[in-house]
Each structure stands twice: as C-alpha cells, then as structure tokens.
C-alpha cells in the first residue's frame, strides 16, 4: 500500500483526490527544501513526511541540509531566541559568520529548482550567493513567532528576506508587516505517526501501568516541557482546587528531562516541590522519542490541559483534540485557534478558571464526549498533514498565477 492510500483511510477519498488534482497541475515541478538538520526538531519531522508525499504526487521534491560548525549553530540559536524577542548577545563577527556559512553552502548544495523553500533563519542568505536563474522562486518558510523580534536580529535577517518572492508563516500572529506576501500555513499532525496512531486498549493500559498511572481513575494531563510559560504550577493549583471535590482525580505532568536547560531544571524543581508527596500527582520525565507513551497518556486522559501563558501553535492541543479529548487551554497563540468555548474545550485565564472548567467537564460526561467528537472532526478538517500539503500546493498554484482573485486549478 502506498502512502496516499494509507492516509486515505484516515482523511477520506475526497481529500486525497484534491491533493492528486493539485499534484497533476504541479507535476514535474522541481522543489528543493533546505533546512539545518535532517533529524530532530519540528522542521525535520515535517520534511520527513512531506518530501515522500510530494514525490508520490508527481513533484520532483528534494531535501538539502546546510552544514555549519558549532559556532554557527550557537549564532543561529541566538537568532531563534532573538526572533521571539528574547535578549541575545551577538557581536558583528557573529552576524558575518552567519553570512559566510551561507555563502559556503550556496557553493556546494544542489539548489537547482523551480521553487526553493528555505526553512527558518539558518539558510536565509542562500539566495544572495546563488547564481541568478538557478532557482525559479525563493520562498522563506518561517516556523518561528517573529511578531516581536529583537531589533538587531530582525535588521540582519530582513536583509536576506528581500531576496525572496514570498514568505510563509504558521499563524497571522507570528507575522509583522513585510513587503513580501506572507502566506499562512498552519502546522499539522501526522495521524499515522506513533504519537497519534490508534492504540488498542491492552497496549494503552500496559503503558499506563508501566508509568505507574492508574488506568481506572480519571486523569488530567498536561504534556509540555518544564517552562514557566507553560504554567505547570498553575496546573497543579487548578488540580488541587478540584481534588477536594473529586478525590479520585489524578494529574499527570509530562515533560522531557531538563539536563541541559538550567531554567527548565529550576522550573522542574519548583514543580516537584509543589507536587510534594501527593501520590496522585505524577511528574513524568520521558525521553524525546516517547511517542507511544504520550499517545497512551493522551488517550487515557479525561481532560487535557495546556494552560500556557505564551504558546506557539500548540501541537499538543492538536494531538489531544485528535484523540477526542476536550482541552482546557490558556488564551494565547495557536491555542486560541484550536480551543473554542463549549465546542472543543475552554479557554481560561487563571488556575481558578481552569479548575472551574475541569469541574464542569467532570460533571457532564455527555458534554465531554460531544466536545471530544467535535475536536476530532475539527482536527481532521484543519490540522492533518494532508491539509498542510494542500496549502503548500495551493500556494504554489497561486504564485504561478498571480493577480487574479479566484483561480481555477
């Protein structure tokens, strides 16, 4: 069975037909994606499924990765932070290193294509050093919230953006005014990936038992790294406010180990202190590849929380909705796009608000079921990888036919 057939079982024939139809119009187009790593991180994950699907749909798609030394990645990590408005400390030589590494990569990468998608800031200066005519159209795909960047970083990167025909952002709130088109393509989840695929009940229960979580009692869950912006202490406070009325309740906070992140370690310590000796409050530190475990926990939760104070798109919310769980989330970033009051969950503004909504949902199991079903369909329509690919294809169609308000493919 090919890839598209497998996805057809999940998203239905019409969606796959739409992709085929668009693919026919773009067949043979040479597309190269360039990023900074082949493994690890959200961009590599997206390209990992997108390239084979594009190829299966008749596109001549390739993936190139730029190379740099550790100093280069230190600098680009600062760009990543700076784009999100965090304070950074870079010297003029650091900015020059970024440009120099791009120049060196432009010489040895195979960039010949009709369209080159350049992902994030690391390879942003490739167009400057690529001979004219080698790439038909350059598109910068920014996966980061760039709405309030550090001024120095933005000044440096915007020097590269002027060489692009268009840009792509995940959400309108990630953008700032630019004199290039800013296409909007939200991220997506892969319904067949280990983190999201169907789990049978025995496998789910087995995983829960391995994690020492009681499969027979209601469980609240938040999946996120230990970061103050994710407000894990607020989640604990909300749980405690509900626990007196629902003593059977469990709370599971799942994140990664914070070995190389001093701030994360500090937050984790605060979380552990606050958790105390509550046997029903589980703080789980799981390695980054614990996809089946996360899947089992999300499928077992009665309600999923994402009580962030600041958030990107919030794919953990998407994952929970896909598994038919109502989500209680902070009104920030992509959470507000996914959580709709009384439809897919509730937006909240305080631990008390979260506690109130938890109590509401615990009381009305029929409403939980209905919201879960709505959330599942909402994700099927909007946030699966087939929609993601359709958005890319639609954008490419559009760029080939600018200037009209409606286009027939």
């Amino acid at each position: 069975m090919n890839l598209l057939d497998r996805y057809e079982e999940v998203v239905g024939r019409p969606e796959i037909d739409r992709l085929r139809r668009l693919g026919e119009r773009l067949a043979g187009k040479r597309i190269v994606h360039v990023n900074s790593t082949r493994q690890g991180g959200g961009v590599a994950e997206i390209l990992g499924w997108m390239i084979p699907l594009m190829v299966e749909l008749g596109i001549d798609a390739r993936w190139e990765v730029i190379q740099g030394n550790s100093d280069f990645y230190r600098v680009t990590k600062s760009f990543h932070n700076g784009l999100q408005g965090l304070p950074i400390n870079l010297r003029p030589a650091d900015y020059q290193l970024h440009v120099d590494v791009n120049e060196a990569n432009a010489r040895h990468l195979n960039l010949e294509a009709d369209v080159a998608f350049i992902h994030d800031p690391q390879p942003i200066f490739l167009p400057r050093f690529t001979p004219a005519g080698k790439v038909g159209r350059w598109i910068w795909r920014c996966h980061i919230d760039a709405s309030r960047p550090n001024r120095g970083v933005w000044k440096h990167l915007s020097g590269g953006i002027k060489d692009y025909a268009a840009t792509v952002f995940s959400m309108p709130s990630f953008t700032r005014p630019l004199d290039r088109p800013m296409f909007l393509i939200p991220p997506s989840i892969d319904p067949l990936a280990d983190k999201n695929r169907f789990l049978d009940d025995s496998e789910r229960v087995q995983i829960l038992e391995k994690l020492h979580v009681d499969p027979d009692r209601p469980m609240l869950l938040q999946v996120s790294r230990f970061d103050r912006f994710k407000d894990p202490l607020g989640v604990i406070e909300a749980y405690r406010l509900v626990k007196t009325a629902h003593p059977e309740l469990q709370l599971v906070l799942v994140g990664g180990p914070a070995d190389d992140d001093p701030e994360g370690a500090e937050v984790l310590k605060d979380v552990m202190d606050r958790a105390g000796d509550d046997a029903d409050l589980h703080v789980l530190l799981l390695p980054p590849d614990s996809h089946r475990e996360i899947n089992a926990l999300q499928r077992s939760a009665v309600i999923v929380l994402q009580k962030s104070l600041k958030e990107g798109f919030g794919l953990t919310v998407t994952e929970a909705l896909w598994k038919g769980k109502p989500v209680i989330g902070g009104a920030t970033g992509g959470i507000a796009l996914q959580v709709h009051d009384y439809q897919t969950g509730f937006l909240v503004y305080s631990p008390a608000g979260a506690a109130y909504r938890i109590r509401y949902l615990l009381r009305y199991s029929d409403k939980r079921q209905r919201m879960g079903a709505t959330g599942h369909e909402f994700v099927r329509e909007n946030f699966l990888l087939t929609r993601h690919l359709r958005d890319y294809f639609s954008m490419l169609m559009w760029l080939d036919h600018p200037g009209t308000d409606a286009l027939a493919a």
Partner: protein
Amino acid sequence: MNDFIVEDCSLVRCATGRACFNLRELLEAARAAGPGVLEHHLMRCALEDHFDLYEFPNDLARWCWDALGDRELAEKLALLNPYVFRDFEKLRGEVVDVLEDHLWSLERFPWSRPGLELHLVESRLISFDTGERFSTLVGMAEAVPRMSRRSLFFHVHEAYRRHGVDDFSAFLEARHAPNELVERLRQIDFYFLNLNQLREKVLEALCAFVAEPRAVLGGAA
C-alpha cells in the same frame, strides 16, 4: 446542454502583519484595509471550517462578541449580509457606518481580551474540478450529500458573489426546472447558515421536487 461540473475549492490565506486590539482599530481597518481583507473576514471566513463552531456568520461579529465583549455591536455586524452589496465600496461604507455609529454612542471603546486580537488576513480562492458531473435534478440530489463543504461554498457563496445567483438554481433554471424549485433554492438565506445547515436546506428543497415525476429532467441520473 452542459453537465453541472462539481467544483471544490481551497483558500490561500495571506497575513497582512497587522492586528486590531480595540474597536477604534477595527474601524480604521474597515476604512483602510484592502478589499481582500474585508472580503475574507466577512465572506470567506465561512470556508475556514471553523464556521460550524460559531454562532455568527462573520469574523467581525464574532470578534466583537468573543474578544471585545461588545454584544450589541456583534449583533449588528452579524445582521449585515455582505452578499447583498454588488459594489464593494458600498459594503465597506456600510461596515464603517455600523462601527462609527456604535462608537459614537460609547463613552469608552472596548479592548480585546489578551490573546484574542483580530489579525487581519486576506485570501484568494483556488477552485478544482472534482471530476464529478451530473445532468439531472436527481443527479443533483444525489451529489449534494457527497459534496465537500467547500464545494457547497463554491457553488453557493462564491457563485453568488460572482454572478449574483447560486450555481444550483442557475443550472436548474437553464434546464427548465419548475420555477417553484428555482425560487425555493434562491430563497435560502445561505449567509446565515453554516455549510452543513446549507447542505440540509438545499437537499430539503431538491427532495421536495425529486419525488415529482415532472421534476426529473433529462432522463436518468
């Protein structure tokens, strides 16, 4: 006579990089934003598939209700049907008028709840031929339940925007279908329905006539 070609469509959305944080900024946006921005937030927002989740038919009304907490203004904006305006500047004038009139009566203008700012977006539509065809009323009645919500949007909302009439009734009229059916389809208040409700209304109208032998056009479907 040509068959009905079932089209589907997809939205290509572009950010403007601008957002409204309060009612005064919404008024400024209504005055100055490009036609594509107002068109998106008043019309094409229905295609974002969030539509079934919402009570109001356009982004502006919904934002006033949810983010500004201004219920009265939300109600006024919800009632504004952009499809009755054949001239875009008249539509803009009407939106501006509603906002100005409301602002005039306020002592303090409302601000958005944090995190719920209105980010201004414009969009364009790409349509696809689905490959599906029908030539009869029966065929239409069979095809409508299978159509995606985007197809319904394309053949009703978008058709109305382009030609002032939906594709279904135009097709049936050209095939000399009963006037009552054509009129019944044209009387569907599509802007105030979500796309699933619209499907039900179209089907109700078709099924009321499909049973009638005289309504079956051009032989078997």
